[in-house]
C-alpha cells in the first residue's frame, strides 16, 4: 500500500494514539558504513521527530552526504558501499531483509544538489514521471496530483500556463522546485535534501528555504548543508558531524548559542573546516 494509505489506515491511527510523546519519525541505531575498506560512518545514533527539519552540518568529508544517502538506501547505488546497523522509519527497519529497497524510496524522497529534471520531459511529465512509471494510469488523478505537487512546491503560479514546456527551460531555482514537486508527487513521509540550494543564487535559495519551512507541516525533512547560516535559519534540530562521527545533536538554538562540545563550537565559529 502507499504511505498515504498506511497513514490513513486504522492500524496506524491506533498506534499513534497510544503514544503520548511526539514520536520519532526516523531513528538511526548503530549505523556504520564503509566504501570498500574505508569506514565512512562510525556508530551513528540519533532520532528525528516528526514534522521537524533537521540539518546535518560539518566540514567536507565528514560523512553527512553518506549518512543522508543511507537514510533511503540510495548509498547502495554506489559500488563497494556497505552498511551495518538500522534505520527505523516509524517502526520499520529499512535495512531489514524483508524490505524492498525500491519501495522504501517511495516513502522517503530525495532532492539533490544540482537540479536534475528529466531532460526529455515536459514540466507536467517530470512531475508525473514517478506516478506514471509506478503504474498509475488514471489521467485525472495524475493531473490532480501534478497540480497539488506544483502548488506545494510554490511553482504552480509560475508555470501553470506552460506545463508542456520542457523541464530544462526553467531557471535554476525553478528547476529545483520542479524536482521538489516531482519528489512530493510520490507523497513521501520523509524528504531528504542534499545541499538543495548550493547551486542556486541567494534569492532562489531563500525561496527554497521558505518552501522547506512550509513543507514541514506535512513532512519530516532532513537536510544536508555546508552553509551554516542556512542550517541556523531553516532547521529545528542540528547535527554536527566530523570524520564520520556525529559529534553533537540538539535543538538548533542550543547548538548555535551554546554548543556543548568544543569541536562543535570551533567549527561553527569558523575556527576550522
Amino acid at each position, binding site marked *: 500500500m502507499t504511505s498515504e494509505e498506511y497513514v490513513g489506515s486504522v492500524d496506524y491511527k491506533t498506534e499513534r494514539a497510544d503514544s503520548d510523546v511526539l514520536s520519532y519519525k526516523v531513528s538511526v541505531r548503530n549505523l556504520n558504513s564503509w566504501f570498500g575498506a574505508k569506514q565512512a560512518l562510525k556508530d551513528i545514533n540519533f532520532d528525528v521527530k516528526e514534522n521537524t527539519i533537521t540539518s546535518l552540518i560539518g566540514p567536507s568529508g565528514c560523512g553527512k552526504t553518506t549518512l543522508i544517502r543511507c537514510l*533511503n538506501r*540510495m548509498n547502495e*547505488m554506489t*559500488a563497494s558501499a556497505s552498511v551495518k546497523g538500522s534505520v527505523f522509519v516509524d517502526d520499520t527497519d529499512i535495512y531489514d531483509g524483508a524490505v524492498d529497497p*525500491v*519501495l*522504501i*524510496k*517511495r516513502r522517503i*524522497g*530525495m532532492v*539533490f544538489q*544540482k537540479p*536534475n*529534471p*528529466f*531532460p*526529455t*520531459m515536459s514540466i507536467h511529465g517530470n512531475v508525473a*514521471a*514517478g506516478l506514471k*512509471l*509506478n503504474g498509475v494510469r488514471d489521467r485525472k488523478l495524475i493531473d490532480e496530483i501534478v497540480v497539488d505537487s506544483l502548488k506545494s512546491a510554490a511553482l504552480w503560479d509560475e508555470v501553470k500556463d506552460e506545463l508542456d514546456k*520542457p523541464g530544462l527551460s526553467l531557471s535554476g531555482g525553478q528547476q529545483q522546485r520542479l*524536482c521538489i514537486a*516531482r*519528489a512530493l508527487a*510520490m507523497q513521501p513521509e520523509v524528504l531528504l535534501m542534499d545541499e538543495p540550494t548550493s547551486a542556486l543564487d541567494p534569492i532562489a535559495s531563500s525561496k527554497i528555504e521558505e518552501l522547506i519551512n512550509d513543507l514541514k507541516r506535512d513532512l519530516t525533512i532532513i537536510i544536508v548543508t555546508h552553509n551554516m547560516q542556512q542550517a541556523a535559519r531553516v532547521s529545528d534540530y542540528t547535527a554536527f558531524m566530523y570524520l564520520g562521527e556525529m559529534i553533537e545533536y540538539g535543538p538548533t538554538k542550543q547548538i548555535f548559542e551554546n554548543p556543548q562540545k568544543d569541536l562543535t563550537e570551533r567549527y561553527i565559529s569558523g575556527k576550522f573546516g
Partner: protein
Amino acid sequence: MNRVFTGATIACIVLAMIPLGSILLEVVKNGISAISFEFLTRPQGSIVTGGGGIGPAIQGTILTVAYASLIGVPVGVLAGIYLSEYAGNSRFAYGVRFFNNVMTGMPSIVIGIVGFITLVATIGYFNITAGAVALSIIMIPIVVGVTEETLKLVPNSVREAGHSLGIPKWKVTMFITLNSAKNGVLTGIVLALSRIAGETAPLIMTILGTSLYFQGLLDPVDALPLRIWRLASQPYDHAHSFGWGAALILIIMVLSLSILLRLLVLEKRFKLGIPEMLKIRRMWK
C-alpha cells in the same frame, strides 16, 4: 600567421569536398537519364537488349536492410544498455567491449563467407535470411558502440533522480536513461543502416541476387549494391547506364535516411511539427 592557417584549413576542406562533389556530379550526370517509372518498378528485361528496370533490387535492398535491422537493432541496443548500465567494469564487460571493437573492423567479405557457411550451406541455397543475418552482424557492433557511448553521456544525476522516485532499475534504464539518450541512439542506428545499405561483399555470398521480386524468407533476393556491380560488369552500354541509375537511386536512399534523421532530431529537440520546420527552412533561405 592566422590568415595563413585559416587559408590552409579552408584549402583542405575544399580538397576534401572535391572527390565527394565529383562523385555526386558524375552519378547524377550519368544516372539521371536512366530514371523513369519503368526503371524504378520493373524487373530487368533481357540482358542483351535492355529494357525493364531495377525494381527487384530496390525492393530487395529495402527488405534486406529492414530484416537486418529487425535483428540488429534490438540486439545492438540491448547489448549497449547492458554494457553501460549493468556491466560496469567487470572482466566480462571488458572482454565484450574488446570483442565489439574488433568486430567493427571485421572485413565484410569475411562476414559474408561466414554467413555463407552457416546459413547458405545449411539451408541449401542463397537466401535473404542469410543476407540479413550477415548485414546484422556488421550492424550490431556499430549500434552497440554508439548506444553504450551515448548512454554513458547521460549524467548520473538523471539516473539517480529516477531511482530516488522508487522506480525499478529496468524502468529507469528503459524509460528515463534511454529516453534521454534516444537522439544519439537513433543517430547510431541510422548510421548503421546507411552503412549496411551500401554493403556489397556479404551480399554476394549470401543473397546471390536475382531478377525476381521477393519470394520468401529462404529464397534469394536482389539488392542495389549487388545489381550495380553486376550491371557494371556487363559489356553493354544500356547496362552501364542502368548501373549509373541504380547508383543514383542508392545514393538518394542513403541521403534520405540521413535527412530523415536530421528532421527527426530537430523535431524531437524543439518539439516542432512539420509546418514549423518548413517555416524555419524558409527563414534560413
